[in-house]
């Protein structure tokens, strides 16, 4: 991935190794990537240009029907190709949902990471450890548990009603808000950890220097802390945004499955819709979107690095 990691150690690791040794060391990873990533992706790409079989599978005839279906449909009455926005709407909703989840994770994650990084070194590991504890439990189970907590007759609503704060349960389960809650909960550590790594390397004497120059706290945050920890922030945002974009457990369970997201749309094509080429095309389109985002961020990071003379 083109995630700009805040490391400058490539030179040392490469030193002292011959080309052959380096290749040998790389071979297992390359083999894994080729067999389990490049090859399947190749299948998906090829399948997306084939004709759909009646009951799933594909017929080996070239066709761009799958990509056409993304933007156009045959009119029920006249059989003309007309533009339709159903799939664009689904992709748009998924992107908005992922952006919201990313923003919320950043707002919660940055202060958390800052807090951890400013603890004495002896305590930091404990905090990082605590952040990763939820990961010991399967994502599915965590999502179902959240549903149990927020549902109408769940402990949250029961407790609120017992205190007399509300007299009707607040509807949280099966709403977009619940989806956002689920996504933030699932992916928050992906935001905290890279930012923590960046802040931990941050030279806090720069803060004192800033204060000496009469900068207020807001200015210090904007002019010093954020620019210097940007690689961590960017990495965190990407690590939250990308899985959120393709997620389908949270939308299905917490959102009640009322609205399709990209992930569900793709899954549907391989099940009841029996349209493998379109499922493949939808996956390729998602992949392209993600790649575009990655390339933009990588470019930006490079420019920023050049601009700051590093």
């Amino acid at each position, binding site marked *: 991935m083109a995630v700009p990691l805040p490391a400058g150690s490539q030179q040392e690791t490469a030193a002292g190794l011959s080309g052959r040794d380096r290749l040998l060391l790389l071979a297992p990873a390359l083999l894994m990537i080729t067999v389990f990533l490049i090859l399947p992706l190749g299948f998906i790409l090829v399948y997306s240009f084939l004709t759909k*079989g*009646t*009951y*799933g*599978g594909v017929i080996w005839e070239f066709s761009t029907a799958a990509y056409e279906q993304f933007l156009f*449909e045959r009119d*029920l*009455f006249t059989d003309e190709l007309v533009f339709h926005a*159903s*799939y664009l*709407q*689904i992709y748009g909703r998924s992107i908005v949902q992922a952006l919201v989840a990313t923003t919320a994770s950043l707002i919660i994650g940055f202060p958390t990471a800052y807090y951890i990084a400013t603890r004495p070194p002896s305590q930091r590991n404990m905090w990082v450890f605590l952040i990763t504890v939820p990961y010991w439990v*399967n994502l*599915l*189970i965590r*999502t*179902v548990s959240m549903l149990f907590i927020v*549902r*109408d*007759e769940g402990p949250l609503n029961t407790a609120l009603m017992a205190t007399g704060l509300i007299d009707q349960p607040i509807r949280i*389960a*099966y709403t977009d808000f619940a989806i956002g809650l689920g996504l933030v909960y699932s992916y928050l550590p992906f935001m905290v950890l890279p930012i923590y790594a960046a802040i931990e390397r941050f030279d806090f004497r720069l803060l004192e220097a800033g204060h000496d120059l009469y900068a207020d706290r807001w200015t210090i945050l904007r002019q010093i802390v954020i620019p210097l920890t940007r690689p961590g922030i960017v990495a965190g945002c990407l690590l939250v945004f990308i899985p959120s974009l393709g997620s389908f*457990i949270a939308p*299905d*369970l917490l*959102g*009640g*499955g*009322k*609205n*399709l997201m990209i992930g*569900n*749309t793709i*899954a*549907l094509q*391989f*099940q*009841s*819709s*029996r*349209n493998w080429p379109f499922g493949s095309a939808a996956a390729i389109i998602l992949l392209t979107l993600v790649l575009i985002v990655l390339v933009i961020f990588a470019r930006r990071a490079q420019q920023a690095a050049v601009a700051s003379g590093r």
Partner: protein
Amino acid sequence: MSKKLVLMMAASACALTLATAPGAQAAGELKIYNWFDYIPQDLLDKFAKEHDVKVTMDTYASNEDLLARLKAGVTGYDVAVPGEYMVAIMLQEGLLEKVEPNRLENFKNVREDMLGVYWDPNREYSIPYQWGSTAFMVDTAVYGGDINTWKVIFDPPAELKGKINMLKEVNEVLNAGLRYLGHPRCNENPEQLKELNDLLIEAKANWLSFNSDGAKEVLVTGDAAAGQIYNGFGMRAREERATLKYAYPKEGYTGWSDNIVVIKGAPNVENAKLFMNFMMDPENAAALTNFARYSAGIKGVEPFLDKALVEAPEVNPPADAPAAEFVPPCPENVVLLYDKIWTNLLK
């Protein structure tokens, strides 16, 4: 659908695999591919012991899942449990082994109404597993009116608005709508589909969620006060929330019939036939029925059935209820049209 709990099921299936292996060296193997939560472990153990066969089982969550995996080239399974329309599709796709279960010893136990079925008229490929219906349940503590009509779902009374769960299955939802409108199934009439499309979009505003494997849970917890459900699953829901009542809508409802089949190229055809014969034994069919809570396609199970099951309203339609309707697989152009309406509904 929504196939999430299935991951958990898959995990439990792995556990099953380990647990089923008998201590002694088995004479052979049998690999079963079945729906999640659809066979009691005791029954698998009994078969393994009787025939000295090592039984392993994996699970899937829908007929479409099964088809997709077999089409994707997954091999090694001996038997699977497809629904009736999926048997028809699998036959057409050449995915079934012709094992002629009609020649097996226990075939005489098959109910007459399970013979001469459209998906396998001579029962040369399949035997009945469980059958039942798909309609909906209503919490009578929330709504006390007449529930035997799809109006409850598509034009709900105020008490039920925003408290309705639908199955996340395109055919069940669209067929329910077509029944409410009085239009035929496997429909390709543009005006009627337009009407269906409008009906669904209007009704969706009153629906809470689309959930298949959580269809029972959502009713039991009270999040939904009405919801589409399979009858046996509904019985299990009622056992946990007594005010739930299974509806027999006057406009009609879906019938389904799952079958044991042998997959083409099965490595253990003889053991698969033994398993078919085993499952046609009334006592074993009853043990399965007591667990799954649908109905057996085998005669003579009554003495072995739980009493609660024999009398349950979910498996005993009232005299004035219409018969359940078995819907054959729709032609390709209809599948495409249905997909459009479904995507449009959930976009």
